[in-house]
């Protein structure tokens, strides 16, 4: 029997994708479909006095203009809290907020007509800075401008600093980043023969969207079906409801097939972004390099709605110390509402921003103590038996020391090819799955009449390779070739809720759910003689005849909720760890920083698919380079990809991916996750390498050519 785990099994979606026949949502469009587009707020903060739709509606080819009054159920959605309106009723809080949907016979008609929907506003005072929001009498929501304040408290912070020999204090800033997936938000909706609403879209979660649609339309969830089309990237931006609500509403009213696609400009304007964070960071260490106290004050701009703001607030706090054992910790993490773009989930949920801060701090301390940056990391690294900042004891997989060890030979033998070069390290840890809450995944296996087994999976494949990985896990668990297995995926009608493809959770959590179902089926197959040679077709036929057709799998990682005051608890069942070593070359004349080489060592527990893991690492490095050196979304200015730069093939370094496998006993064959970890330490290691090359310390990201040159100039003048 072939082995599947740890093999370079070919991605099951790759063939269709190289042939160009993979069907992304907008590829499903046909001529008879209506096209819907959104009329959006042009004001950052205003009361809506009047929505004038008559003129648009009277235009030839316009099928409908829908507003909040057309929503039969609840006009609200939100992954964490239902605070966002599908279509604004009386008030808008950011530029781009949806107000109406115009449906026409084609895109041209719909877009043209949308220009004739007239909105009368009464402008309100705009808040565009979280520090203004903090104290402003202008309230974006009645409950106040503070969305969330989370704390992490451990030990005695005052005592910690008193007993420290070195104290370093700095402020770090990051800005908005766009997901910039190559495929913008798109989907289509239709009514099936039973009169149910069906939405096919580019998404990271189908069951969540089914529930939101059902609430909006006041229909039971079983009257709604959501199917995932081939999805051109997610990175957190397709977690929130994008086109799905509008499509469902159009179908509800028109009973016709309707298609939508956001333009790149629309995607930039209206969709969520990475949170800009302002991080005040104070670190105390003893002479031997051990970190004794960490005090962090995080202030975030969450925009006007929650989206995943609370999640980022807490996750940033919990990960604020970095992957180090720190006895005395005090973190305050606060998110304020503003009239800026909605900040939501993006690869790493605030942790990449914090990694930039804690890794810079650590190098600073190493410098003062005249310690090697690698040694100080080895000294403080979390390892088996360590207590995290939330006082969670790491009992199992904790491979940070191993990642450091694997980087060590490259670090110790590093040599500057010229004096413009420098080397930097970045470490990270990252809790797999959602923070301190239940986040289960369910799946099931059935026998198919043609004599094969079906895996019913609600996991969304967004390019990360989850379909292939789940199939590998199932094949291994059943000791069965993939030819005998059919994957039925991404359809609420044929699957259970697997949760979102986010938080690096699908391999770990849904992988375990698949293991669970497989174990049950395997017992059955054993009993039925499959492993002693009885043909599967026989077993299938008999099982279907008897009605023994379904084997359910479930996994919910063992976590505890964290304490509201101290965040004490076990918010994650397992953590991923990584160390990146980056070499850069800085052009002191222009301020351009070129990333030359990255060694990236990741403890993934177990690499189910080595090529996929490497793909995640390389992709994460690219996004980390963007975060560190070029990506900067300026509200009102960044309109499209011509003024928002992300890395091209020529911005990429040579990459050596090093896989460490400290197996996680609660994970499928020991696997954890890698999607977000791949990105998290990269920007930090670049900033440290720039310091090594030039002596300047970047405290604000992105450290693009202009910012870096100004730092170099300031150093020169000193």
């Amino acid at each position, binding site marked *: 029997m072939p082995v599947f785990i740890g093999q370079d099994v070919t991605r099951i979606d790759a063939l269709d994708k190289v042939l160009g026949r993979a069907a992304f949502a907008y590829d499903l469009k046909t001529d008879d479909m209506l096209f819907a587009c959104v009329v959006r707020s042009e004001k950052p903060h205003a009361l809506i006095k009047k929505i004038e739709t008559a003129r648009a509606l009277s235009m030839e080819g316009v099928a409908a203009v829908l507003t909040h009054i057309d929503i039969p159920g609840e006009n609200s959605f939100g992954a964490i809290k239902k605070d966002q309106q599908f279509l604004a009723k009386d008030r808008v809080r950011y530029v781009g907020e949806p107000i109406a949907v115009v449906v026409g016979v084609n895109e041209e008609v719909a877009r043209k007509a949308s220009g004739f929907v007239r909105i009368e506003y009464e402008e309100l005072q705009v808040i565009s800075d979280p520090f203004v929001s903090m104290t402003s009498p202008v309230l974006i929501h009645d409950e106040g401008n503070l969305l969330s304040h989370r704390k992490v408290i451990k030990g005695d912070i005052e005592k910690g600093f008193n007993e420290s020999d070195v104290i370093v204090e700095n402020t770090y800033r990051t800005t908005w980043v766009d997901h910039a997936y190559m495929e913008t938000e798109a989907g289509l909706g239709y009514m099936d023969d039973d009169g149910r609403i069906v939405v096919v879209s580019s998404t990271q979660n189908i069951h969540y969207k089914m529930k939101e649609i059902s609430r909006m339309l006041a229909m039971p969830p079983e009257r709604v079906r959501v199917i995932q089309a081939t999805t051109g990237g997610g990175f957190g931006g397709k977690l929130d409801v994008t086109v799905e609500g509008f499509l469902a509403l159009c179908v509800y009213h028109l009973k016709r097939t309707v298609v939508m696609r956001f333009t790149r400009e629309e995607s930039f304007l209206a969709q969520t972004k990475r949170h800009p964070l302002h991080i005040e960071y104070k670190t105390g260490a003893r002479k031997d390099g051990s970190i004794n106290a960490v005090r962090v004050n995080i202030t975030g701009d969450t925009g006007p709605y929650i989206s995943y703001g609370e999640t980022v607030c807490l996750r940033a706090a919990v990960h604020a110390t970095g992957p180090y054992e720190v006895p005395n910790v005090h973190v305050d993490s606060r998110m304020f509402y503003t009239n800026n773009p909605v900040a939501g989930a993006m690869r790493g949920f605030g942790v990449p921003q914090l990694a930039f801060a804690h890794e810079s701090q650590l190098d600073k301390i190493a410098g003062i103590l005249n310690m090697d940056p690698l040694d100080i990391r080895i000294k403080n690294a979390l390892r088996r038996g360590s207590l995290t900042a939330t006082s969670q004891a790491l009992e199992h997989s904790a491979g940070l020391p191993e990642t450091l060890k694997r980087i060590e030979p490259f670090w110790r033998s590093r040599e500057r090819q010229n004096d413009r070069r420098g080397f930097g390290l970045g470490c990270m840890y990252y809790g797999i799955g959602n923070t301190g809450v239940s986040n289960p995944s369910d799946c099931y296996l059935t026998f198919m009449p043609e004599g094969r087994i079906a895996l019913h999976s609600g996991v969304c494949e967004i390019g990360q390779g989850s379909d292939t990985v789940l199939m590998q896990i199932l094949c291994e668990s059943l000791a069965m070739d993939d030819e005998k297995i059919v994957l039925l995926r991404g359809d609420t009608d044929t699957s259970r809720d697997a949760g979102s493809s986010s938080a690096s959770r699908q391999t770990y959590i849904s992988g375990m759910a698949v293991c669970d179902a497989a174990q049950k089926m395997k017992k059955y197959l054993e009993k039925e003689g499959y492993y002693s040679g009885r043909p599967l077709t026989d077993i299938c036929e008999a099982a279907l005849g008897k009605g023994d057709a379904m084997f359910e799998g479930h996994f919910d990682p063992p976590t505890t909720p964290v304490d509201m005051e101290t965040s004490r608890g076990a918010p994650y069942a397992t953590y991923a760890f990584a160390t990146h070593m980056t070499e850069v070359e800085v052009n002191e004349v222009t301020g351009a920083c070129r990333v030359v080489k990255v060694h990236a060592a990741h403890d993934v527990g177990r690499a189910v698919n080595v090529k996929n893991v490497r793909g995640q690492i390389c992709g994460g490095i690219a996004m980390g380079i963007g975060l560190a050196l070029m990506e900067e979304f300026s509200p009102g200015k960044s309109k499209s990809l*011509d003024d928002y730069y992300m890395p091209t093939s020529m911005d990429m370094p040579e990459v050596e991916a090093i896989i460490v496998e400290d197996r996680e006993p609660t994970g499928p064959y020991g696997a954890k996750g890698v999607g977000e970890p791949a990105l998290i330490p990269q920007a930090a290691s670049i900033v440290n390498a720039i310091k090594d090359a030039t002596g300047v310390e970047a405290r604000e990201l992105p450290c693009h050519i202009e910012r870096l040159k100004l730092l170099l100039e300031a150093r020169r003048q000193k």
Partner: protein
Amino acid sequence: MKTISFILNGKKTVVEVRDSETLLYALRERLGITSVKEGCEIGECGTCTVLIDDEPHYSCMTLASKANGSDVKTVEFLGTADLLHPLQEAFINSGAVQCGYCTPGMLLSAYSLLLKNKDPDTDDIREAISGNLCRCTGYIQIVEAIKDAAGLCKHNS
């Protein structure tokens, strides 16, 4: 409206297009070639890349009427499920495909490179695909795939 006649993936094609429509639109909406993607419509992402006379062009900023009399290739030209082009095979085998949205355009840029340069080095490859953005892979495995395919093509010829 204009009637244009051109070679599309080796076949003579005649189609009526509006004066003001892009080649991207004509390919997707009139000829059903949905492998040509729309990612920005201003020539800043590369997902709409097609080959015109074997050179990569952005079809989002090419008027359809310009295709008249030329040779246009999309990824469908490269291979079929039964007979993949070495580039397609290498993309599959090297992990060069993640979400797949940039893949058709990326393959075409690579194909055009290999027509001109049988033995490209890493820098040649990076330059050749530098007009095709990819947000998933970090390009590393794409570059490896193209290098592998070049080797395979040379071996076969």
